[in-house]
C-alpha cells in the first residue's frame, strides 16, 4: 500500500512522540506505580519478618487505626503532624511571605539577602538537624549560652529534652531550613504583579498593610496554592528533622513522634523493638498516602478557586 508523504510525516511524528513518552512511562511504572501498588498489597497480608504469611484482609488497617497497641501511637503522631502543619503554615509560609515582601521592595543589600535566605534550603537536612541539635544543647549550646549572657537564665531549658518544647524546637529548625523556599516562590509571584496595579493602589493612598492584604496577597494566590499544597504534603510526610534531632522513638517519651517515624519503626523495627511488622507498616503507609492524596487534592481545588486571573 502506497504511503502518502503526509501519512509518513504523521507516522514519523507519532513514533517520535512515543519514543519520548514510553521510556519515562516504563520507568515510572516500574519504580513508582509498582512499589506503591505492592505496598498496598503487602498491607493485606500477615508478615513474619520478610516472609509473607496469610492473607488477613483489613486486619492490619484495623490494628493501625483502632488496635490497643498501635492506635494510641498513631493518633499521637498524627496530632503532632497536624501541629507541625499549622505551625509551619504560619511560621514558614507566613514568614516567607513577609520576607518576600521585604526583598521585593529591594532594600539595601537585597541581592545578598535574596541569596542568604535561600542558602539553608540547599543544605542537607542531616547537617541542619545536627547544627540545630548543637545550638539547642542545654549545656554548651548557642541558645542557652545566649540566654545566660543576657541574664535570662530562667528561660534557658533543655529544649530537646523537655516534652513541652521539643516539638516546637523541631518545627523552628524546619522553618529555618526551608523558609527560603516560600520566600523565593512568593517573590517570583510578587514580581509577576503588574507594577501599575501597585502604583495605582499607592496613588489611592493605601497603607502598607492594606496594600499587602487587599492587593498583593490576593494576587499571589497561585503561589499560595502551590506552597500550601506542598507544605501539606511535607508536613504529613515529615521525617528527616525529627529523625535526626529526636531519634526514631520521638524522644522524649513520644512528644516528637510523627507518622513517618511510626511507619519506619513499625516496618523496619528499631534498636529497642526488634519486631519488624511489614503488614502494619504497609497499612500505615497506605493510609498516609491516601490521606495526603485526598486532602491535598481537596486543598488544591479549594485554593484554585480563589485565584484571580490578570
Amino acid at each position, binding site marked *: 500500500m502506497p504511503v502518502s508523504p503526509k501519512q509518513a510525516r504523521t507516522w514519523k511524528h507519532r513514533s517520535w512522540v512515543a519514543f519520548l513518552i514510553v521510556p519515562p512511562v516504563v520507568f515510572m511504572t516500574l519504580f513508582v506505580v509498582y512499589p506503591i501498588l505492592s505496598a498496598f498489597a503487602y498491607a493485606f497480608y500477615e508478615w*513474619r519478618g*520478610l516472609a509473607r504469611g496469610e492473607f488477613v484482609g483489613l486486619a492490619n488497617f484495623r490494628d493501625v487505626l483502632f488496635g490497643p497497641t498501635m492506635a494510641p501511637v498513631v493518633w499521637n503522631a498524627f496530632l503532632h503532624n497536624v501541629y507541625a502543619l499549622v505551625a509551619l503554615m504560619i511560621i514558614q509560609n507566613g514568614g516567607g511571605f513577609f520576607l518576600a515582601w521585604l526583598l521585593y521592595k529591594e532594600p539595601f543589600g537585597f541581592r545578598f539577602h535574596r541569596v542568604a535566605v535561600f542558602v539553608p534550603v540547599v543544605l542537607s537536612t542531616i547537617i541542619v538537624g545536627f547544627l540545630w541539635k548543637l545550638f539547642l544543647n*542545654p549545656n554548651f549550646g548557642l541558645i542557652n549560652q545566649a540566654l545566660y549572657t543576657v541574664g535570662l537564665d530562667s528561660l534557658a531549658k533543655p529544649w530537646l*529534652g523537655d516534652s513541652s518544647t521539643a516539638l516546637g524546637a523541631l518545627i523552628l529548625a524546619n522553618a529555618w531550613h526551608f523558609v527560603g523556599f516560600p520566600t523565593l516562590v512568593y517573590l517570583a509571584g510578587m514580581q509577576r504583579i503588574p507594577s501599575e496595579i501597585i502604583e495605582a493602589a499607592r496613588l489611592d493612598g493605601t497603607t502598607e498593610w492594606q496594600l499587602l492584604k487587599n492587593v498583593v496577597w490576593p494576587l499571589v494566590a497561585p503561589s499560595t496554592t502551590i506552597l500550601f499544597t506542598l507544605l501539606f504534603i511535607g508536613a504529613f510526610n515529615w521525617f528527616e528533622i525529627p529523625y535526626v534531632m529526636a531519634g526514631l522513638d520521638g524522644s*522524649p*517519651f513520644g512528644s516528637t513522634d510523627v507518622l513517618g517515624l511510626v511507619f519506619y519503626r513499625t516496618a523496619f523495627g528499631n534498636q529497642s*523493638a*526488634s519486631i519488624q511488622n511489614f503488614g502494619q507498616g504497609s497499612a500505615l503507609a497506605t493510609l498516609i498516602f491516601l490521606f495526603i492524596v485526598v486532602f491535598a487534592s481537596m486543598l488544591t481545588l479549594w485554593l484554585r478557586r480563589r485565584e484571580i486571573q490578570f
Partner: protein
Amino acid sequence: MKLTRRLLLGAAAGGYLLSAGAAMAKTELTFWSWRQEDKAFYNEIIKKFQEKEPEISVKFETYAPENYQTILSTALAAGRGPDVIQVRAYGNLETIATPGYLLALDKQNVPELANFPEASLAAETLRSDGKVYAVPFAMQTQLVVYNKKIFKDNGLNPPKTWDELMSVAQALKAKNISPFANGTATAWQNETIVGGLLSSMLGKQFEEDIVSGKANFTDPRFVNALTKLKDVSQYFSPNFTGVDYPSSQQLFVAGRGAMFAGGSYEIANFKNQNPTLDLGVFSAPVLKAGDQALVATYYDGGYAVNAKSDKKDAALKFVRFLATPEYGTAFTNQLKNLSPIKGIKIEDPITQEVAKLAENSMSYLMLVRFRYQEPSGSVLLQSNVQKMLAGQQTPEQAAAEINKGIATYYKPFQK
C-alpha cells in the same frame, strides 16, 4: 586463521584453569556481618582458619548496621544470602530463624557448643522449637564505669551500697564535678541506666518471679528501685533531660563527669577517644550491705549457617572454628569485648574486671525477656523512665504503665 588459533589457545588456557581449579577444589564461603569496624580482625581470623583448612576460603562482607537486618532478610527470603551469617539475638534472631532460613545447631554438628554457658545459648535459641541457631559471640554487661583519677583526687572509693553511692555523688557535686555524665534525651539510654544502677536492688529473685508470673512490674521491688533512680538523677549531668547519648559520652571522656552508668562496650570507646583515661567498673550498688551485687548481662548475637547453603559442611567447619577458646581469646583481647566461650585467657585488666563482675549477674531484663512482641518491654521502660525522670510521672505510674503494656501479650500478667 588467526581467529582459529586464538580460539584454540583460549580453549587450552581455559581447560588448564579448570583442571587446576578441580585439583585445588577450593570452596569459597561468604560471611556477612554488620561489623565494618572489625574487618581487619575477621580477615586475620580467616587467615588462621585457612592454616587449618586450606581448602576453604572465606569472603567477609559487611553492611551498615541500620540496614543489615533488612538486607539480610531480603536476601534470605529470595533463597540467596551468605553461607555464614552474623545474626543478632533474642527477638531479632526470631525474625530470621522462624521462617527456617538458619540451620539448627546441636552438639552433633557443632560439638564446641559444650563450651558455652546456658544463658548464651538461650540467647540464640528459637523459643518455638527450643533449638540453637547460632554460635554466640559476645556478652555485654550493664554496670557503672568510673574515672579512677577523679575518685582518687577526691579521696573517694567506688561505692558498694546505695547510701555510699549517694554520699560519693554528693561529695563530687560539692566539688563542682558532675557525679554522673549520663543524660536521658536519647531514649535507649534510659534502659542502660536502669541496667547499670538498679540490677542489685531488683535482684535475681525478682527476675525469676517475673518469669514465673509470681510478680509483675508493679512489684514493690521494681517501684522502689525506680524511686531510688529518680532520687539519684539529681546527680546526672546538668540539664540531663536534654543531654543526648553522644553529649554524655563526651562529658565523661572530657573528665567532666565521674561515673557513667551504661554498657561495658563503652570502655573501649572511651579509651579510644581519650587513651589517658584510667577507668574502673563496679556493679549496681546494693540496697543494704550483704545483699548480692549484680550487673545486668545479655548476649549480642552469634554466627549462624544458612540452611539453604550448598556448602554447609565447609560453613559448619568455619562456625566450629568460631566456637573454639582460641577464637574466643583473640576476640576478647583484640576487640575488648567479652566472648562467652569458657576457658579464654583475658589480657586486658579492665576486661578481666568486667568478666569478674559478670560472674554475678541477672539478665538485662527487657532485652532478654520482653523484646519479642509489641509494645516491647524496652520501649516501655525507656519512655516511661524518661518521663519519670523528667518529673512528669511518679515511679508508681511508670511501673503501672510498663506493666500495662507488657500485660497486653504476656499471659502471666493478665491474671
